[in-house]
């Protein structure tokens, strides 16, 4: 009886302990998995001009866009996950979520597909255009 009681208590304690032991890496992997799942739909909405990438590192619906509830939920979930990533990076590097978001926004703008809506640092919405990378002078053909 005593043995059974001890085992029960141990199992009960373990049930609460296991979630705490899960590493941050597991959360990051889950977030990444969800982001990968959402990506095709996000790309479709971007191509349609319904959503764009704002200067804070988040997705934003365009002014006249008519989005379905499922799409609005998708954007909300994506932004929530992005914020979690920015918060983790900000905590690690001693910065703020906002600052990390701005840096990510800059990365997103540099990789944006032609025609996608992006918000520049001044807050103006523009369509992404292809910009040829600058070739250093010492590597140019003479």
């Amino acid at each position: 009886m005593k043995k059974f009681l001890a085992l029960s208590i141990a199992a009960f304690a373990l049930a609460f302990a296991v979630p705490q032991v899960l590493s941050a890496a597991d959360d990051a992997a889950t977030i990444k998995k969800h982001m990968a799942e959402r990506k095709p739909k996000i790309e479709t909405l971007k191509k349609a001009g319904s959503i764009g990438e704002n200067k804070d590192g988040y997705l934003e619906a365009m002014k006249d866009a008519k989005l379905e509830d499922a799409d609005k939920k998708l954007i909300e979930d994506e932004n929530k996950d992005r914020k979690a990533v920015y918060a983790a990076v900000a905590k690690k590097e001693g910065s703020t979520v906002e600052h990390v978001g701005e840096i990510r926004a800059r990365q997103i703008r540099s990789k944006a597909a032609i025609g996608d809506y992006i918000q520049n640092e001044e807050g103006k919405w523009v369509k992404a255009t292809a910009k040829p990378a600058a070739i250093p002078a010492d590597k140019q053909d003479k």
Partner: protein
Amino acid sequence: MKKYLPILAAAAVLLGFGASACIKTESEIKPIEIKPVHITLDINIRIEKALDDFFADLDEL
């Protein structure tokens, strides 16, 4: 007195030149503090790398 006026004036001018030669001026140039800018750049580089580490394969999809 009027006879000595030019001599006095010349003496005053010479005294002025001599005094300016003897006056020492010291100016202190404070060094430009660049540490905060350097720290900001370093943090931004680390943030960029951390974001690249996380998002690189997602961006490739």
